[in-house]
Structures are given as C-alpha cells and as structure tokens.
C-alpha cells in the first residue's frame, strides 16, 4: 500500500486532540479510520516547540492540562502510551495585587483554601465552605454530564428562572433571587464582601473561558470557580510539554491500526445526495489532490467556518446553515502570549507564602473596574493599554517537569486578553508590526508586580493572535476555543442552532470541534463525537474498554500521590 488511497469506514479531517480522540475511539471500536492533518505534527493546540534557545520547551497553546479528568485518559490508556501528568505546588492559581497581597486558589486542599479565604474575609470563606460542601459530592456527575454527554440545553434553558441558578440558590441562599437575570460581575458583587476576592475570582473566570458580563452559566462561575479549582482543576503539565498528549493519542491510534496522514490539508468534503462520502486533499498535500472515500462517516475537527464555508462549500449550504455559520464568527477576546526564560526559579518576595511553587497566576486586574475595562476594550476593539492579563500565566512548567527547560533555566508565560481586530492600527495584519512593542508592555506590567522576577528574565518570545491564526487557520480570528464561547452559543446552540452537533445538517458528516463543550484538553468534544458516531454506526456496544467516567483516572493518579480530593469541610 502506498499513500492514503483506498476506502475507510471513517475519515477524520484535522488531527487536533479532539479529532485524534474521535479517530482513536472509533478505530479501537473496530472501524477503519484515517485522519488527515494539515500540519507536520498533529495536535493543534497541544504543541510544544523549541522556538527559543535549545532545550527550552515552549507550549505554544494549551498550557494548563485537564486531561486527567477525562474518561479518555483511562479508555485510551494514555499513560501506557507515554503520557505522564505532572504538577507543581498545591496552590494552583493565584492573583496578586500591587499592594503585595494575593488571593490564592488551592488545587486539592479545601481546608487550606477555607483558611486562606478566612484570613481575608470571614464571610466570603463561609460562602466558599457552603458551596464546596454542596457541590463537591456532585462534581463527577456534573462534570460527566456537562463535558462528556451531548448537549441537551441551549442558552434559553440556562437563563430562565428555575434553571441551574435557582437550583444553586436552594443550596446557597446567599445567591440573589434574580440570579438568572444577572451577569457574573453582579453575582460576585452580591455574594462576596471582599473586593480582592471578587476580583481574583472574576479574573479566573475569564481565565477559564467564561465571560463575566454574560448571564447563564457564566454568572454562576463566581460561586463555582473556587470549588472547581479545589476538586478538578489541579493544574498540570505533561512530561515533555503539552504535545505529549498528542503523542499518546497518536501512539494509541497507530497501535490500533489507525492511519494518520500529516502534511495533508483537506480541500473538500465530498457531499453526494446530501451525504458526506469522502474528502479531496489539497494540491499542497503530501498526496496531492488524492480522493479518499469514507464508507460510513466523515468527522470534521475543524471549526465551523472552514468546515462549512470551505470544505463543504458555501454554495451547498441551505440559507439557515449559512446564516448560522456566519453568525458564529469569533468576535471576542483572543490571546497575546509572552514567553520568558528565567535564570532562577520564580520568587514572589513580599507576597504571602506558597506563591513560588504555584502553577499559574493572573495579574494586572486590581478591581472589578478593570474587568469592566476589559469588556469595554473588547466591545470597541481597543487594545488594552496597560494590558490586562486575565488569561492564564504559568510559571510552573519546569517546576513540575524539569525536562521543559535546560538545567538552571525556568520558563514562564502569560496570556494577555486582546481583541483580534486592530482598527486603530490598520487591521489584524498589523499585529506583526506591534508585536514586540506590546510584548514590552506586558513585561512592564508584570514588573510592577514583581521586579525581581523580571530581572531574572534572560529571553523572551511573543506570539500575537495573528501568529496563532497562521499556526492553525482553523482558529479563525486567532480564537483559542474554536469559536465564540459566550451565551448565544451555549450547549445545543454551538456552533449554531439546529445543527444537532456533533451531527450536522449533512448526513454522515459529524463535527468533533466547535461543538459543546468548548475546546479544552478534557477532550470532551472528541469524546462526544466518538460516542454519537459509534451509536449511529452501531459499534458502541460490546466495547468493554469504553467504560471510564469523568474524574476516575484523575482520582487514581492523585491517590497514588497520597492526595484525596472532595473531602468535606467540617
């Protein structure tokens, strides 16, 4: 056999982690699967490259890995295929203030979290305790049903009276009665007394992809976030960097006989009589213009825009689909990344203990007003100046995994939240022009919080949203979540109402990305796509290995390290 010619049961377009997840589940279930990836290496968001000095691993997209909480971790034996998850200290995240105070979020020790909040504000600590004791026992169920089952709710369900918010009110009477009408900022203001606690929590809501100015699920985040952090958000990297997840998935896929073709951009999904029957590769592909057929299904792991407008073809779309896809265009915060190499381990002198070994942090947000400033900047396509770094910042890569930096070197990165468009500069193509200058501003901002840390910087690398897009054109407008994540595209409405994702308006064409849930390293959307396709093709039953539940593997791995999560607070 030479090249990809032939017929497969299933073709997956795009070898990102969700595409690989779907491909591997189906291959392991007995189908013949081929996956075509545009880039040299699969993995899309889980990429690690040495773009700085030799030995400095740069995780250019995914940085805080939550794969341990995924059923995929156990089903696909990712450990056996070389994945080792590692973490640094027990304080996973923190949010420093210019006055050298900080609000910290513990990764598994709820008692320590309670003590810490109590040292700032007793009332707010009690809120945490009540929420934690109410929610922690349900976390497995909530996580599994929200991340690993096909969405059943849309934005209307979630914002109406009697929805999730009202349920939570039953557990936590401090939640305002009209919670379904409020956004996260308003909820935080109503529930918490201390402005630093509010600010830190809201910054972390932004970090985890929620929009504090949205109603619905996002509005509950101020209450849920600290609990999430303590029960299932242990911050991890993997040995060798984020790309190790890709390698483990690829190895598993290959071991079960799956075929991955990298360097193979797909030009077109063949639609015949309304059904997807194959793909045509690009003239630039390793097998130029090859036509490959799928007997049973084509799964697109690209986001909605390239899938429908380019691969299926805009001219083939019914009006309602075309409108739905166009409305899905990303118009929210994207990320500007600074990456630093330090010549000594990160130290936070003058701050509370525990920060030096924490995995990550957010900064540059002193009060709720700064969160509102971010909202305004995004609404008006204005570049935040000074920057706002509610995106994840990580200092723990090399602390958790020494293979990610040469001896004596440590890496650190931060994601500033920025708009894609730069109307004041002449458009998004001007990111190349202002990249280093904006990177300097991020440096200067962090220096205000920790001059010693910035004095230890020996090298820096910046990537703009344009660099993101160039690296992965499926991330339209530099989106890191394969499309917008705010309320109108919640649940069943992602990527557009009526799509039926992971099914699509075309027979045998499925989506494994740009569907609910948002693209993260839980591998949830790939798992859901695999589940639905396997049901539709009748191969789901009898797969004894396909049995893990959310959090199962994570609990086992933590237990091996002597850590128990979800212990009730007295």
């Amino acid at each position, binding site marked *: *056999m*030479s*090249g*990809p010619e032939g017929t497969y049961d299933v073709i997956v377009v795009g070898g990102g982690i969700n595409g690989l997840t779907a491909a591997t589940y189906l291959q392991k279930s007995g189908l013949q699967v081929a996956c075509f990836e*545009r*880039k*040299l*290496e699969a993995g899309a968001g889980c*990429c*690690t*490259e*040495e*773009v700085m*000095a*030799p*030995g400095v*691993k740069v995780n250019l997209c995914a940085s805080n890995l939550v794969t341990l909480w995924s059923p995929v971790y156990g089903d696909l034996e990712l*450990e*056996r295929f*070389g*994945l*080792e998850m590692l973490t640094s200290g027990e304080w996973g995240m923190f949010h420093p203030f210019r006055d050298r105070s900080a609000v910290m979020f513990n990764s598994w020790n709820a008692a320590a979290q309670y003590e810490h909040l109590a040292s700032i504000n007793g009332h707010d600590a009690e809120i945490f305790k009540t929420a934690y004791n109410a929610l922690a026992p349900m976390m497995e169920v909530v996580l599994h049903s929200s991340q690993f089952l096909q969405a059943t709710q849309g934005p209307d369900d979630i914002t109406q009276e009697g929805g999730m918010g009202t349920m939570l009110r039953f557990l936590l009477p401090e939640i305002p009665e009209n919670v379904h009408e409020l956004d996260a900022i308003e909820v935080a203001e109503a529930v918490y007394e201390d402005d630093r606690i509010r600010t830190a929590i809201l910054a972390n809501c932004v970090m985890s992809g929620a929009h504090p100015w949205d109603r619905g699920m996002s509005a509950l985040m101020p209450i849920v976030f600290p609990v999430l952090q303590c029960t299932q958000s242990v911050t991890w990297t993997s*040995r*060798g*960097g984020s*790309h*190790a997840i890709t*390698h483990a998935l*690829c*190895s598993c896929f*290959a*071991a079960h*006989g799956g*075929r*991955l*073709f*990298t*360097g*193979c*951009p797909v030009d077109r999904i063949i639609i015949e009589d309304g059904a997807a029957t194959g793909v045509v590769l*690009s003239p*630039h*592909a*390793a*097998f130029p213009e090859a036509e490959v057929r799928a007997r049973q299904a084509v799964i697109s792991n690209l986001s909605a825009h390239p899938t429908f407008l380019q691969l299926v073809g805009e001219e083939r779309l019914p009006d309602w689909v075309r409108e739905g896809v166009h409305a899905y265009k990303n118009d929210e915060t994207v990320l500007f990344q600074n990456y630093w190499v330090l010549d000594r381990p990160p130290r936070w002198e003058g701050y509370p203990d525990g920060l030096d070994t924490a995995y990550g942090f957010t900064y540059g947000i002193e009060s709720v007003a700064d969160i509102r400033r971010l909202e305004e900047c995004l609404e008006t396509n204005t570049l935040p100046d000074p920057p706002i770094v509610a995106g994840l910042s990580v200092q723990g890569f090399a602390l958790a*995994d020494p*293979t*990610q930096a*040469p001896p004596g070197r440590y890496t650190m990165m931060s994601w500033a939240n920025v708009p894609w468009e730069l109307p004041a500069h002449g458009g998004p193509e001007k990111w*190349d022009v202002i990249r280093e200058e904006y990177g300097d501003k991020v440096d200067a901002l962090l220096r205000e919080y920790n001059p010693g840390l910035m004095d230890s910087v020996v090298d820096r690398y910046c*990537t703009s949203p*344009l*660099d993101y*897009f*160039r*690296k*992965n*054109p499926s991330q339209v407008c530099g989106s890191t979540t394969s499309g917008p994540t705010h309320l109108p595209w919640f649940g069943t409405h992602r990527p557009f109402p009526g799509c039926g994702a992971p099914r699509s308006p075309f027979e045998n064409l499925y989506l494994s990305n740009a569907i609910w849930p948002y693209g993260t390293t839980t591998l949830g959307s790939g798992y859901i796509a695999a589940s639905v396709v396997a049901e539709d093709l009748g191969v789901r039953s009898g797969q004894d290995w396909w049995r893990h539940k959310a959090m199962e593997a994570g609990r086992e791995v933590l237990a*091996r390290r002597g850590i128990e999560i979800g212990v009730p607070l007295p």
Partner: protein
Amino acid sequence: MTTTDSHYDIAIIGAGPNGLTAAGYLSRAGAKVLLADRHHECGGGLITEEWSGFRFNTHAKLMMMMDVMPPFEDLDLESWGCTYLRPDVAAAIVTRDGRAMCFYADIERTARSIARFDADDAEAYVEVMTDWYTIVNEAIIPATYSLPLPLLDMAVSYEQTEVGRVVNEMAEESFVETLEAAGFESDLLKTAILYLGTMYGMDPEGGLGFLLPLFFNRLLHASVVRNGSHQLAASLARFANRNGTTIERAAEVAAILTDGPRATGIRFADGREVTAGAVISTADPQMTFLGLVGEEACLAASPHLVAQSQSWEWESTSLFNAHYALSERPRLAAADDDPDADRALVKIMGVETVDELLGHIESVKAGRFSTAIGAGMVLTDFDPMQAPVDIEPGTAVACWETLAPFDLADGSWDGKREACAKAVFETWTEYAPNLADTTVVRHYANDPTFIEAKLPNMVRGSIKHGAYVPTQMLSNRPNADCSAYRTPIENLYVAGASVWPGGMVLLGGGYNVAGVVADDLGLDRWWTEPEFVSEARKKGLVG
C-alpha cells in the same frame, strides 16, 4: 511514574533516524521494543519546528539517500505519510557578477551548463562523472547498507574489480587530490564540486577521497522531505508504533545496566529501570561507553574500550544556520543569466575559486566565522506548505547554511548570533536584491553551540557524531571492535552516526544493526536485501 513495562526484548537509546529505523525493523520482526529519547520529540537531527506557521528545519535539511535507502520501501514509509521531493535543479554556484553554473543529477544536462563557461570541461565532466557515478552506485551505496569489510579484507577484495581498485586508490587521496585528478580547468566548476563535497564538514586536505564523489553525487540527488525533515522521523515512529514499539519521549537514559561483561537493561534519569535482552545505543562512543556503561564495566569487557572511546575525534568544523520566515521568496539576480540558478535547491554564494574555499575552511578551523560565504536554500520552492501559503500566498522560508567554528576566536556566540544572522541576510541581499524590501516575520539563528545544546551527541556542534577520518571510518567506526554493531559488552550494540556508515540521515546504522540483532536474537529477518547490495556482494565490495 509511567506504567511502562519493566522488561523488553530490546531497549534502544535514542530516537534519532537510526534508533527509529532499528525499532521499526525489530518490532516488525516480533520483538518487544522500547525506544527512549531525552528530547520531547522523536527524530534526533530530523527537526522541523514552526515559528508562526513557518517551518524551520533547524538541523537536517537535505536527504542524500531517500531514493536508495532500503527502509523507505521495507518500512512502507510512504504509506505512513513520508514523501520526498527531488528538485529539478540540484545546485548552482552564483558569481558576484551575476552568472551561474547549474548542477543536475543528470550528467549531460550539467555538462551543458558547464559548457557555457568552458567547453572542454563540459566534455571532461561527462567522462569523469561516468566513473564517479559508477563507484558510488556499485560500491559505496551498497556498502552503506551492509556491514563494513575489515580494512585488510577490503584492500585485498577491492583489488579484484575495476570499481574496487578506483575506490582503493581514492581512499589514499585527499578531496583536493581526487578533484585535481579529475583534470578540470574551470575554477568555478572545481569550486562547486569541492563546496558540495565539503559542505558538511569533510576535510578537503584529509584522506578518504572516495567520499568526494559520494557527497557530490548524492547532493546532486538530494531530496527534501515533504512537510519538513521531521516528517521522516514521524513516519518511522508511526511504523514502529504500529508494530508495537513503545516510544518514551522526554525520557533521558542515565545508564546502561551491566552484569559483568553483559548489558542487562537501562536506567532512566528519573530512576526507573528496565531490563532488556539487548540494548542498542545510538549515542556517540564517549556517551555510550564512558557515560552510560561506565569505565569499570567497560574494563570488565575489554582492555581497549575506554581508551578507544577517549580518543574519539570530533569534527573540526560545525554549521551555522539562519532561518528566515519571509513575506516573499528571495530572487537571485543571476536568474537573468540562467533562470535555473534561481530554482536550484543549494545556491552557493560568496566563493568562486578553490583557493578562496580552502582559505575559508582553514579560517573556520582557526575559529573565524564568515558571513560572506554560504549556501542559500528556499525549501518552500519545493514544498510551499512549509510556509502558511494557503492563508498568506507568496510567503516563504529561507535558510542559509555555512561552515562555522564551535569556538569563535573573538568571543562567544551568545554575543554574535543575532548580528551574524543579520549580516548573512545582507550577503544574501547582494545576490537577491528583492530581499531588501521583504518583511522578515520571524528568524532564528542556530549556531554550533545551539546544535550541541539541542543534540548532546553532537559534541562541539558535530554534524555526524564525530569526524570522518581514516582512523574512524569504514570498519574503524567507531573502532575496530564495535564497527560490526556488536560490542565487547555482550548484548550491547551500537548503531548511531558514530558507527559505519556514519551520519547524514542514511538510516544505514539502524538498518544494519537490525540485521545483526535479529540474527543474534533468533528473530525473523522478514526483509530482503536490496539487489544492489547482493550484486556488490558477488563482486566482493561489501561485507
């Protein structure tokens, strides 16, 4: 903390081209194989990384043997996604006054380009190359994919054939002498041949003259791997995975475990130990024997091993690479003289006479770096997707590669790296004026110290895990006791670039060691020897 098994039939250290190849053959033969590498990615020198969607091949770029290497067919690499592109125009030497001589795999076609400069040389070229191509095809390529003959046997056996006698004669000559013997007049032609022969660190005044025809011939047949060099490694890895090889990345091996004179397994840097029936090291002899085995265990097995490893000679020159992500490709002014020059894979710039070239190499050996002489390559001319051309048409990736000293006579690379990349770009602009107005989206300067830091087996920025000198070539590589891949330490094998046939992504070491280990372990040699090797064996040209 991974749940990797604790016993394997074979543990291979290093997932470079040879380690991956050996893993592929041996796991397909039914062995349970563990392949471990300290880097987070497979491939050793087969590195391709992305800077904002632009791919830089930061080490290996030109593949000399893709069209003849047995693993390509045996391991079905094409179906695992590896394809390669053979440029129509292999090389061009470009003069300061805008002329160009072009080189093709095809002898007659090259002769026509030479004829534009010197009609006699064009005729001589056809005659000389007919001989050179013959020894390369009939003797040296077959020898690459078989065990080396012991030197004495080789001297005797090679006298039996015309081809063998020519190789024997050349083995005593330096590159310069072999070149002079060819009798060309044109300095430009001689410069181009010698440049291609020495661009990967061969000493023009040293011996092993038969390697000049080899390097020249194979660089005219060079290909680039579609997608980037790393694609070759990725395809090898997929084949190995499919056949059950466990690959551990970001997993540094700290020791080869021994019991008396026998290897029993490996220990990782994190303390985990794995036992193995056979251990194959693709590291250099110093790292393998002095570092991983340890002097004591070496002495238990052989009185020579320690001294042999200590005297291993590294190359006297390394490489400097500058990679540029560009808004448009460089266009040579010499394209007006010969449009083919602009289409060449290797564009030699800054040197037009043999004396200049020899002076340059001497100067590099003395620690001086020149930003004025080098080879320009634009891999996106052959494989456009190495730049994000689907979203930004016209963009390109360009690389400048040139010999460089590991130790600079006048200071550290840290202070010079960026300035050198800038100066090199200016040199290139003299030959391709459109570069002046081109946007450089990203660039990366990869100097010899970076090579060593990234690939610790490439000590002093080594290109081939150690010099190609008569004392460590053929059956002397890495030494007379280990050149047949077995070592004095039972169950320990060597297979990296420091073993015959050497570096340059030939996959020869991995291919050859697989046969030896399969025989020793009683595994099925499921592959068949290529006909060109069998033919050479009949003539006594290979071991």
